[in-house]
């Protein structure tokens, strides 16, 4: 599959705002040109609007690469907002481009989406939402990919959330995982009615959750799940906050706790690279331990192993990543009986594919919301101790 990006116009500097009519005309002209070349077989497809917010101009190349993949999976109109909030100069610039993917099969036909890039700086950042709104294509869903930490009191964030059907964030990049996740839990709680949320980091956990859940799809193993009393999650420490527990590890624990109705107690202990919470399910106590591994390049903030044990039934369920981080291995035993070991690919999806997957979902991910709420509870215990 190959990508071709055509930028129709050089940056059009419109200091007082964005000339939406002109941008639409330029997009229409680019499609007319593409359609004129009949043999090129250009197919314009729009199944969604994707608003991308970033504060880093240098993210542009990464965003472009991801949008190439997104166009192949869910083509549509991308509205990329590059915001420089600290600038003293108030400026708003916009330009259009089309992005075409040649289908891998057959070759000639191109699936094309379109892009409007808006660069906003200084005081004009807050007004950028009003430039984006008229550019949103009607009748197809609107996704906001907020490449930053969401703040409930950020006016632009709130305005864009109101415009969107679903918000995509990535908790992997949280600077202060504990505090940021707690605030995320509050945000979800306060805006639950108005905001559907996707977290790319939660998407990365799907393989882990799937493999773990599959242990108890088997009728004979299911009873052991109700006797789990020990959980160990090992993770690569986040570079930005090496003393904190990686969001992915917390989310996994939050998921287990919310699905299995484990409640946090006040018991919390920290020792070196390890942190332990005591949780409770009725009379049963569950020791949940997080342990940072040696820092490894390329796996920042990711989970390395997961182990669930039950002292009462002598059961043990393990999922772990191999040394090269290319495969996941599962193993289990109940009493003296060892179950089948299995090796599966670690992660089949690229970041672009993962983003595309989030963009194909429109329903509420209540399981995620409950997991975040549970993490919020854990962080509160930690902060009190």
């Amino acid at each position, binding site marked *: 599959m190959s990508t071709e990006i055509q930028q129709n116009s050089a940056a059009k500097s419109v200091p007082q705002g964005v000339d939406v009519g002109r941008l639409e005309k330029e997009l229409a002209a680019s499609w007319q040109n593409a359609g004129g070349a009949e043999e090129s077989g250009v197919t314009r497809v729009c199944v969604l609007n994707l608003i991308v917010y970033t504060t880093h101009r240098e993210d542009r190349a990464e965003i472009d690469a991801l949008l190439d993949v997104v166009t192949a999976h869910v083509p549509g109109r991308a509205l990329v907002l590059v915001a420089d909030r600290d600038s003293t100069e108030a400026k708003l610039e916009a330009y259009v481009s089309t992005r075409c993917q040649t289908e891998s099969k057959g070759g000639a036909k191109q699936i094309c989406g379109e892009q409007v890039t808006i660069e906003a700086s200084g005081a004009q950042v807050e007004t950028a939402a009003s430039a984006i709104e008229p550019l949103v294509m009607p009748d197809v869903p609107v996704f906001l990919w907020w490449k930053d930490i969401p703040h409930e009191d950020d006016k632009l964030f709130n305005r864009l959330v109101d415009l969107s059907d679903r918000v995509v964030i990535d908790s992997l990049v949280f600077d202060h995982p504990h505090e940021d996740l707690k605030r995320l839990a509050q945000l979800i709680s306060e805006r639950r009615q108005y905001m559907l949320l996707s977290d790319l980091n939660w998407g990365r956990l799907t393989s882990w959750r799937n493999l773990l859940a599959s242990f108890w799809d*088997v009728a004979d193993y299911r009873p052991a799940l109700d006797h789990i009393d020990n959980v160990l999650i090992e993770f690569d420490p986040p570079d930005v906050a090496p003393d904190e527990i990686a969001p992915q590890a917390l989310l996994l624990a939050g998921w287990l706790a919310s*699905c299995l109705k484990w409640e946090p107690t006040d018991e919390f202990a920290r020792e070196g690279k390890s942190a332990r919470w005591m949780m409770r399910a009725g009379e049963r106590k569950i020791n949940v331990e997080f342990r940072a591994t040696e820092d490894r390049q390329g796996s920042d903030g990711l989970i390395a192993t997961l182990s669930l044990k039950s002292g009462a039934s002598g059961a043990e369920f393990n999922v772990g990543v191999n040394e090269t981080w290319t495969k996941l291995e599962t193993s289990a035993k109940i009493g003296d009986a060892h179950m089948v070991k299995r090796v599966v690919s670690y992660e089949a999806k690229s970041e672009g594919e993962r983003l595309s997957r989030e963009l194909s979902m429109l329903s509420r991910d209540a399981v995620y919301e409950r997991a975040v709420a549970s993490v919020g509870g854990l962080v509160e215990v930690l902060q009190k101790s």
Partner: protein
Amino acid sequence: MSATVLENPLRAGVRLERTADPCVVVIFGATGDLTKRKLVPALYRLVQERLVPAEFAIVGAARTEISSEEFRANMKEAIVQFSEAKSVDDEVWESFAQGLHYLKVDIGTSEDYGKLSEKLEQIDQERGTQGNRVFYLSTAPALYAEAVKQLGQSGLAKPKDKGWVRVIIEKPFGTDLASAQALNKDIHQHLDESQIYRIDHYLGKETVQNLLVFRFANGIYEPLWNRQYIDHVQITNAETVGVEGRGGYYEKAGVVRDMLQNHVFQVLSLVAMEPPASLNSESVRDEKIKAMTAVRPFTPERVRTDCVRGQYGSGSINGKGVPGYREEEGVAPDSATETFALLTMYFDNWRWSGVPFYIRSGKRLAKRVTEIAIQFKDAPHKLFGSEMMEQMTPNQLIIRVQPDEGITLRVAAKVPGQVTRIRDVNMDFRYGASFGVQLAEAYERLLLDCILGDPTLYARTDMTERGWEIVMPILEEWAATKKDAPFPNYEAGTWGPQAIHDILGKEGRRWRRP
């Protein structure tokens, strides 16, 4: 869905798909073409996609004397050659191969089933497959009844404890009505209907499944889906290939047996059926058979006036010369076997009264395509004069099953300009463009459904027999008049005999060019 899955609290939510129960899939005919081209690559994908649990195994069974090691090596090669990815991940393969076994089994030899039973017990112990079994009959059709009998007599057809046993039977299911009925009778002596999965890989195709969604999840189509608004329906199932070395088989089969009475009728029933009360397998299959029961019987007279048979002569496909059917290996030089058929079908019910369904299927046609074209009636009042009609055909809804799966609605639009000129334009939905996903192979979906215990996409006894009931008068009439068959009557690389155009033409209709 079993209670076990519902009770797994970690399965809640929108992201985690249900995995199947532990089980062993036993493939009879494991050294055959289907196993290496479709079945094992599909099972490997299911493992790779984690849609089957770790407690999973495959036993290849056939008459050939080879070791499990050789079988594994052959299957690895087959996955590389025939899977979409064209590769095997070595570590994942190792894990998969540990559950891949081979056993020499002669279908008719009782002792071999004892050995198979022992092998399966051993696998249950080693891999925790819990006595659940899928037996896949990928053998010569003549051996289906014997295989089921042997499974029954050896006790392998009977589920143990909480386990289950299911048997997948490949097409063709019988060669005529009598043989299909006899086969059904034979297999019912050893299996409940709920254990029988008659596979039709067309039903595993995404677009065929989408027919149900398209018709019954959208409010706008169903009110139009009847004789009031639909003029006629064209179903085209065209292949560019010839008999591909299967001349011997095809001589006895012909296109009606090979394609129409199974694949095409399954698609037809989904187009013609009433909305089911629910999506459970019995409701859907009840509605399908109800529709097919309303098919107007073919009398000898109707066979002569409403049906066309054809056989290809030499010609060219994709710029390459190809021989005629009678020149193919294993085909008699004076063969009267049809390689093309057109049936004009009517459903005598309220919804479809008077609406013809033109169904054509053939080999060595101009293009490989399977599609359903719904042609709507003209607008009731011709507001725009013929001088404005640069091009205007009645609205058509085209559902493409293969290749390039998707849906197109053809509507009239004004050509931009000072004068009113009207042309047809397409509103196009293509799976590849809108979802950007690789569609799963039909066998993947169907195998998984069987392991999950969902027979919705499999054919029930009544449907297989009804298919034969409908076509038997045609087969009998054509057999009785085979000397009169003007074969060959179409050139390879065309759309079939001229007579098919005459049938539509006399009603003022014409074939769509797919």
